[in-house]
């Protein structure tokens, strides 16, 4: 340990009050929005086979907390930059959640009906063409522009919500882990409570069993697609927050004698279990929504037929719809075809999955309208999302704060509260980009380019650094000193072989896939001829340059910092070590004696 730092710091390094706080904070950081809205989506695609690689990487992260020096040297700056960038857009998502939360108290819910246009003679055209839920999200919340080139202006309501989100984050983060440790008792446990309530409610909804059956039958054909595996790998990394400095920072506040192996397993298992647990109510609700959409589709067809042929009410039902249709088609096919009946397929409605913001703000809000007592469910859902996101935000900010503190980049005179406040204010100002009209497009860019390649590269560097540069034996000795036992064969094989190889494979495959096609993005353009389908546009030159920059700057910091450290060490060796040697009272150091 650096004796200088021990001697100079009058304040003690802050500590967790108890083990529970540390575990809850790690769980809160690892369990975030991704568990609720990314995992179920991927599960839908290929049935959750990607669980196994999770466990391979977890031990590394908790253990690396104790090697914050090594970690900081190799990848700390990179982790810090990534945590900063992710924190920017993550809190914007929380601002959106807050916006929906504020509106959930309204009766009726504002996304349940279209607003009336200015002439009072019909509904707003954009809303009629798409759906009220889509209109509320794209127009009344985001006020989105047709493409990323047109920035639009700052949307004042989003600025207000963003300010509230950052204030709430600040109040929990104000004294670092002292206040975070208290806040996580609520933010990490509340989501589980809400998920249980939703589970009970969702299982009693009609159509829930269809949704669940859909979840547990994977589409084997999709397993052949490497892109799917790639998505899964990045999902794991993003979900476990592996390469973020956050987990490292949290672990560094633990006492030295700590059973980190058990901690990691606990966090990892709970993270995976939460994902699975969250997908059950989500799929039940999606099944309910799909069944509702299907019934609505069939009923509107039935109404069209009843009105056109003046059949008595309720004679055509969902059960005998098919037979009636064939009968009417034989007697009067022209009239039937002129009705333009919709084709209703339950499987089609089930396939309408979405991940990310699409799931929370469109699919789920649509489902909640149909549930009795919609306001209550909406409020609960959005509070749950907010807690999930808030506990992950703590990790992001700690991943920024702790390295800054440890590298002594904070001026002495500045109290911690002021420093954390400054961080929050600066983040808020930069995040105002996401409140522009084109903000959502920028957020997607950050999401895809910061959360993919840099994470994989950093995780790879960290594992290589610890295993090959620090040495497996030294690492095992340290673990033995902390936990009392050496890591067994399973872990060693993972660290030395499977994990680096898998990371490398995923990284290479990802880069190869990305460079093959020019990236495009979906836009919401009311002028588009196929509206409400999204118009896919390519990124223009300068936007793509920014994407590349976002991917490479965090990664580049690794070699830059490494070179810087190497140079510093060379100059230290030449002038005599600056690290104080406790046995050297400097009376006889080589520098001060003149040659006699």
């Amino acid at each position: 340990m650096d004796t200088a730092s021990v001697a100079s710091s009058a304040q003690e390094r802050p500590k967790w009050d108890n083990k529970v706080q540390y575990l809850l904070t790690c769980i809160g950081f690892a369990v975030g929005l991704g568990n609720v809205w990314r995992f179920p989506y991927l599960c839908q695609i290929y049935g959750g086979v990607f669980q196994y690689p999770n466990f391979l990487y977890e031990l590394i992260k908790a253990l690396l907390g104790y090697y914050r020096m090594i970690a900081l040297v190799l990848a700390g700056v990179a982790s810090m930059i990534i945590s900063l960038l992710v924190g920017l857009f993550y809190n914007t998502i929380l601002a959106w959640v807050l916006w929906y939360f504020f509106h959930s108290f309204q009766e009726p819910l504002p996304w349940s009906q279209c607003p009336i246009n200015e002439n009072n003679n019909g509904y707003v055209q954009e809303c009629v063409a798409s759906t009220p839920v889509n209109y509320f999200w794209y127009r009344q919340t985001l006020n989105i522009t047709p493409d990323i080139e047109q920035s639009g202006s700052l949307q004042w309501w989003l600025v207000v919500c963003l300010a509230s989100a950052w204030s709430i984050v600040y109040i929990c983060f104000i004294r670092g882990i002292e206040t975070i440790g208290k806040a996580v008792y609520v933010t990490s446990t509340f989501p589980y409570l809400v998920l249980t309530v939703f589970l009970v409610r969702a299982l009693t909804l009609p159509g829930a069993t269809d949704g669940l059956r859909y979840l547990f039958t994977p589409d084997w054909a999709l397993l052949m697609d490497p892109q799917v595996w790639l998505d899964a790998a990045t999902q794991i990394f993003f979900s476990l927050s592996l390469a973020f400095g956050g987990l490292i920072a949290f672990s560094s506040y633990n006492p030295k004698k700590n059973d980190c192996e058990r901690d990691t397993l606990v966090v990892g298992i709970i993270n995976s279990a939460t994902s699975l647990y969250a997908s059950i109510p989500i799929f039940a609700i999606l099944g309910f929504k799909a069944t509702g959409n299907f019934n609505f589709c069939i009923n509107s067809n039935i109404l069209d037929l009843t009105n056109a042929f003046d059949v008595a009410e309720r004679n055509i039902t969902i059960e005998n719809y098919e037979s009636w249709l064939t009968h009417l088609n034989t007697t009067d096919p022209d009239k039937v075809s002129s009705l333009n009946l919709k084709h209703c397929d339950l499987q089609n409605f089930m396939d309408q999955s979405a991940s990310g913001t699409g799931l929370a703000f469109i699919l789920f809000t649509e489902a909640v309208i149909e549930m009795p007592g919609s306001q209550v469910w909406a409020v609960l859902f959005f509070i749950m999302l907010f807690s999930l996101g808030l506990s992950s935000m703590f990790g992001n900010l700690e991943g920024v704060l702790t390295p800054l503190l440890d590298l002594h980049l904070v001026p002495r005179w500045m109290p911690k509260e002021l420093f954390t406040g400054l961080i929050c204010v600066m983040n808020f100002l930069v995040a105002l980009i996401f409140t522009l009209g084109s903000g959502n497009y920028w957020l997607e860019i950050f999401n895809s380019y910061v959360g993919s390649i840099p994470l994989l590269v950093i995780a790879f560097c960290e594992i290589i650094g610890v295993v090959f540069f620090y040495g497996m034996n030294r690492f095992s000795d340290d673990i033995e000193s902390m936990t009392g036992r050496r890591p067994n064969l399973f872990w060693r094989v993972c660290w030395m072989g499977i994990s680096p190889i898998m990371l490398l494979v995923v990284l290479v495959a990802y880069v190869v896939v990305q460079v093959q096609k020019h990236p495009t993005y979906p836009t919401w353009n009311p002028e588009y001829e196929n509206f409400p389908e999204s118009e896919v546009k390519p990124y223009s030159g300068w936007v793509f340059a920014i994407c590349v920059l976002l991917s490479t700057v965090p990664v580049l910091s690794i070699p830059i910092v490494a070179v810087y450290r190497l140079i510093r060490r060379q100059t230290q060796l030449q002038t005599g070590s600056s690290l104080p040697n406790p046995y050297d009272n400097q009376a006889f150091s080589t520098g001060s004696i003149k040659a006699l």
Partner: protein
Amino acid sequence: MLAGVLLLIFLPPLVAKDLCKDSQDGFKVRLSIKTALGDDAYEWNESEMFLFRSTLAYAMRKQTKQDTYNITNILVCNDTQRVSFVFVVTSPDDPDQLIPKEQIEQAVRQNKHRINNAFLLSDMTLEFVGIPPTLAAPIIYDTEPWLIVFGVVIGAVAVGIVALLMSTVSKKRRAKEKAAGLSEEDEGIVKENGTALSGLGGKEGVYNQTFSNDNRFTEL
């Protein structure tokens, strides 16, 4: 003679039917009683039709402010099992003349609410084909509800931040006072032999155990 009498008797309804069937000024009406009321649905029969015709006559009276409209002015045809039919309105002054579409539309529009209520139906379940329902006026709030919730949340957060900052400031002040308090005691004590006794843990000084009573251990 008999033929003439028969003609006279049956002519008006025949004429009436023709007026209704061929007319451009008629509206098709559709009722969805079972959808609206479910198990409480009533059966559609002559009496219900009578009620319909009387409500329409009422609507015409209200709109034209003429009390001369009667149930005989409302002609109905094309009854179906759907419960849909076509109706026309004849002028009270001249039974062969039909009231134009626009006027009927206005009358229906203004009194749709009353007509709906007479049948326990709504705009969705009692349709006049060609007369779109007037949309409910949007609710205009004095303060949007979301701003109220936002105000509550932001107020609580601001109070919290101020409280936390105050507690930090007061903690620092108390620590400073304690340090200041100790240094004040320094001034009050007379220094003996150049040493200040305050740093040694209190005014009483340090208990020197050399001369303590140790009778319990040894007997001289």
